[in-house]
């Protein structure tokens, strides 16, 4: 089969079938395959990102089960007396330890749960923290709490993301590519961090957080 004539000045060896430069072929193939590879971590980090963005509204790693129990108020006494009374009244097992942060408040500690009582008010709150099964693991990966070897994985993923961003710009040519609408979309995307940074320098980071 005769080679397809080309109007470009690229050397013949740097071309593939259809007149596409070889680097574009590699760019497209790497973008495709690294994109497939990045799907898992991208989704994991996206879910975790949404979760940790709202850390001021909730704890993305834990849920805190709270049950309030009422009982007949009792007079303030010494710690051991109050602990024994609370164990009896609330039908609790013997705690591994107890502490009084204030004369009327008693904390009872158990393995992975605790009770805080106000004997004067006659209320006790039973707290049972529970780790969010999947989300806490995703957050640990996203925030690199593992350190060590995971740092290498996270660095590699960051490099892959940077490559995907650059290679993605170069996949299409002409009006759909950087020469056309692609350029304006890239500039619009760049404007987001640039405007934010300018805002921080002019008004301070707290102004942006409002």
């Amino acid at each position, binding site marked *: 089969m005769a080679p397809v004539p080309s109007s470009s000045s690229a050397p013949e060896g740097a071309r593939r079938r259809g007149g596409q430069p070889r680097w574009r072929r590699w760019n497209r193939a790497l973008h495709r395959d690294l994109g497939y590879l990045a799907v898992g971590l991208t989704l994991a980090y996206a879910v975790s990102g949404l979760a940790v963005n709202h850390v*001021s509204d909730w704890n993305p790693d*834990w849920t805190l089960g*709270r049950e309030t129990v009422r009982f007949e108020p009792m007079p303030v006494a010494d710690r051991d007396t109050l602990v024994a009374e609370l164990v009896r009244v609330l039908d609790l097992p013997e705690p591994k330890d107890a502490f009084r942060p204030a004369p009327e408040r008693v904390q009872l500690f158990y393995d992975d749960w605790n009770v805080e009582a106000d004997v004067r008010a006659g209320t006790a709150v039973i707290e049972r923290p529970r780790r969010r099964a999947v989300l806490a693991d995703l957050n640990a990966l996203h925030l690199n709490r593992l350190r060590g070897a995971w740092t290498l994985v996270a660095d590699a993923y960051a490099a892959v993301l940077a490559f995907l961003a650059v290679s993605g710009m170069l996949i299409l040519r002409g009006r759909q590519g950087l020469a056309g609408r692609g350029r304006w979309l890239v500039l619009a995307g760049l404007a987001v961090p640039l405007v934010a940074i300018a805002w921080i320098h002019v008004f301070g980071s707290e102004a942006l957080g409002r």
Partner: protein
Amino acid sequence: MRLRTLILSLVLASAGLHGGAALAETTYGQGVHGEDTTPISVLLANPDQWVGKTVRVKGRVTDVCQKRGCWVAIASDQEFQTLRFKVKDGEIVFPQDVKGRVGVFEGVFNRYELSREQAIARAKHHAEEHGEKFDPSEITGPEVWYQLDGTGAVVE
């Protein structure tokens, strides 16, 4: 067979993320550097003597920051006394189940002076986190606040 190996690897990797729970001790941040500890009651008896010094305290965790895990309250060796151990957000994240555990905490003992408005804001935030009632009129003036600005901890 390959799929089974993959699933097994993922299960083992997931178990690794929870490894801290299975270990006897968990180290946070830079850990602690030394065996000796200072009783919290000693620190709070003459707090200004200790300001700016690096100290280690041992005690049971009585409270933990519920959103960010960025501080814990440590029970003193005396009743009605606790010391807050504050870490930089994100550098150390204490899990919610640290409450009730005993640990050794290392950091710099510092003094903070809060205006009445700051003291109200801090008390209000604490009350909101704990679902408690808050009456700003209970705070009548500026407050002096001591805490351990933490660098590391080892918790059982």
